[in-house]
Structures are given as C-alpha cells and as structure tokens.
C-alpha cells in the first residue's frame, strides 16, 4: 500500500519556512549585498542576532577582537560569511525536533546538515567555485525531507533496511520502494511549497543522483559529494549508515582523485572541531519557543 497520499497530505500542514532564513535566501547569488539589507533581515529576531554574535565570536572564525554588533560582525567577517551564519541561525527552528527514523541522537539531522554545509563550502573552495555561500546553504538544506518523512521511516525501518541488504540498492531507493516516496523527493516538494530558488530545489530533490537531471548542475554534484564525504568521515552518521551509491563519474567530472578526497577529510577534521559552536545552536523545544517569544 502506498503511503504517498498520506505523506503528501501531511505537507499541507507544513509550517512556514523560518522568515529570517527565507529573506536571507533571496540575497544568495547576488554580487553585492549591503549591510542595510542584512540588518533588515535579522533585526526583528533577537534570538537569531544572539546566535550570530555567538558564532562570530567562536574559534571557527578565530577573530582577535570581540564582536558586539551585527555591524562589527559584517566588517570583520564580510557579507558572505555573515550570510551563511544568518541562514544557519534562521534555519535552526526547522531542525529542533528529533528525527528518530534517521538519527538516534536528538539533534542528529541538524549536526549532519551543518557538517554537510561545511563540507560543501570546503569543496566549493577546493574546486574554485565562485558561490560558496550557495554551496553552504544547499548542503545545509539538502535533507529537509527527512524532517517530514522521519516518522514513516521509523515505522518501516527494518523493512527498508532489509530491501537495502537483499537487493544491494541505496537507502533512498529502498525508501521509495517501501514508502512510495524518498526523503529527497519529499524535500523537493517542501522546497516547492516554500518557494526556494530553483537551483536549491534541484539540489534537494536530486542529491542522491538517481535521475539524469541531477547531472545538469554542478551544485547538485557538489552537494552529493559533500554528503558522501561527511558520511565517510563518520560522527554524524544516521541509522542507514553509508548505504548510498558512490558514483565515480562525479570524481572524474571534478577531476578529483582518491588522494584529494583524503585531503578534504583531513581539512574537514580540523574545521569540524572548531565548528562545534554551530552544533549547539538548536535547543530543545522549550528553548525554541522562548527564542520565538523573545
């Protein structure tokens, strides 16, 4: 029996995408973003402003001076770094609930999403891609479908894993066989409802590369590879482990060799420890409500 109608119905009650992150997304892909525009985006949300200051002052950025205001953060970090922090802070509310179908740990999906964002950013730098902020954002949001699909996956987890093992197919294909739809497809649908930019929606929908459309945009391939590398690194692995396809053509496409992948893991290992400040951003439900009231 297909669960698709049931799952699509639950999307009708999808809460709105956090407004700060929504506004920040419209600033992506712009050559110049002014300080006024950034301040305008965050000024009515003290919780997010506090988060931005905390992250700006973290070891990850290693600034010598303490940052007390958004203006200072902008001067010392630059608009693109600040935009990444705003998007990550704005999106935290989405990831506040546990996703037990995919992760044992309550904030597992958030940690995995941040890890993937950092890896996509690192990879974009390695490959000399111009728009690292978009890569970061796409890495952060690639798995949003898991937020909605988690409870369904939890109920059918054993069955899905049996299909993975018996047929030797990747997890998202087994998800589709058992539930009728994969987390990537649900995510693509959410991106449509939330009116994300097209490229971002494509990344979310095709990040496991199971359709030819995926190969039409380097950003999709980049996030796919970042996701895979983060899984290999471990630490934020979910219940499905590493049960996804490794496509060598992506490595040929970016002209990357195995040794380059090792080097990326090495760099990621150093930034991962310092980036832990991002992981602590999502509080429990109460804290989120407080931030909302504040």
């Amino acid at each position, binding site marked *: 029996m297909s669960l698709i109608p049931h799952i699509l119905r639950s999307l009708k009650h999808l809460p709105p995408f956090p407004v700060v992150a929504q506004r920040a997304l419209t600033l992506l892909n712009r050559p110049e973003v002014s300080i006024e525009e950034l301040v305008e985006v965050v000024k009515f949300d003290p919780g997010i402003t506090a988060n931005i200051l905390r992250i700006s002052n973290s070891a990850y950025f290693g600034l010598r001076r303490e940052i007390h205001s958004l203006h200072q953060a902008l001067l010392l970090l630059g608009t693109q770094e600040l935009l990444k922090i705003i998007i990550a802070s704005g999106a935290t509310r989405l990831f506040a609930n546990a996703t037990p179908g995919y992760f044992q740990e309550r904030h597992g999906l958030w940690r995995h999403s941040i890890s993937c964002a950092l890896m996509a950013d690192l990879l974009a730098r390695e490959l000399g891609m111009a728009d690292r902020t978009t890569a970061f954002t796409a890495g952060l949001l690639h798995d949003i479908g898991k937020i909605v699909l988690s409870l369904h996956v939890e109920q059918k987890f054993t069955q899905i894993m049996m299909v993975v093992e018996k047929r030797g197919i990747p997890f998202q294909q087994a998800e589709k066989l058992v539930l009728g739809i994969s987390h990537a497809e649900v995510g693509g649908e959410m991106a449509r409802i939330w009116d994300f930019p097209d490229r971002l929606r494509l990344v979310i929908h095709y990040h496991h590369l199971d359709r030819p459309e995926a190969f039409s945009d380097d950003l999709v391939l980049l996030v796919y590879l970042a996701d895979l590398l983060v899984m*290999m690194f471990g630490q934020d692995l979910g219940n499905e482990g*590493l049960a996804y396809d*490794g496509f*060598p053509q992506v490595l040929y496409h970016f002209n990357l060799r195995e040794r380059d992948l090792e080097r990326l893991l090495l760099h990621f290992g150093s930034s991962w420890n310092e980036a832990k400040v991002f992981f602590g951003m999502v509080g429990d439900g109460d804290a989120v409500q407080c931030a909302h009231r504040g």
Partner: protein
Amino acid sequence: MVVGVADMKVSNQPSHLLVTHALGSCIGVAIYDAQVRVGGLLHYMLPDSSLDPARAAENPFMFADTGIPRLFRECYALGASKARLKVKVAGGGQVLGGEEHFQIGRRNYAALRKIFLKNNVLVDNEEVGGAKARTMFLDMATGRVWVKVIGQNIVEL
C-alpha cells in the same frame, strides 16, 4: 571516556569505559592486556601520514601508520606486553559501488593489516567493511569489546 575522531585514549583504570562514536570509513582499534588490565582505543581517519607529515607530527592519531605504533607504545609504557595483548578492530565502512573509488575505508583497513603483518600482530576479532556506521566500546575492567552497528544490533567482539 570518549575517544574522538583522530584521537586515542589508553588506561589502566578498571572503572573506565572507552567509547568511540560513529565510525564511518575511519577505523577503531582496541587493544587490551588482561593480566595488567592495560588497554587503549584508537580512532584514526586515514591510512598514510605521507599525505600531510606536518599534521601527522601535530596529531599522530589521524593516520594508521603513525597512530597504531603510538597506541601500542603507550600501552607498553603502562606495563602491557605484546604477547598478551588482544587486538580488536572495527569500522572501515564504504559507500555502495565499485572497488576503485571512494575506497578510504578499504585503504584504512589495508594499512592496518600491513602494519600488523610487518610487526607480527594478530587480530583476534574484527567487524569491518560494509556500508555500516559503528560505535565501539572497550571495558577496561574486563577487556570486553562491543560494537554497535548504528540503527541495528550490538555485538561482542
């Protein structure tokens, strides 16, 4: 006591439980001498320190070839003897697909076998490879080692 990525802990305290979380392509090595109750757990990321010798000097636990010797030496320093050490290995997972690409897990494991062969060390038990995420525990009171395959069962090695 939690052993992080590219990290190692050795101990002679029976009250300690050493654990390393979510091994993907990384490998966890647990060794234990039951007579003196000395042991250690290493979590390394990559096979070969020639990738970045400067970083290997900074943190030898990143690589198999620099981390594994350190694990043994530090246990010897606490009184362990090579002949008595039990050696258990977990991790080295792989994504699905061919044999030539995304093979860091396999190369991590091959590096370990090479080092052990050269130094005449036998592996007593292992749980490696496959598309699995694993968490590894070493109980310092008994030397027992468990591996939890995330999302699945827990097995003793």
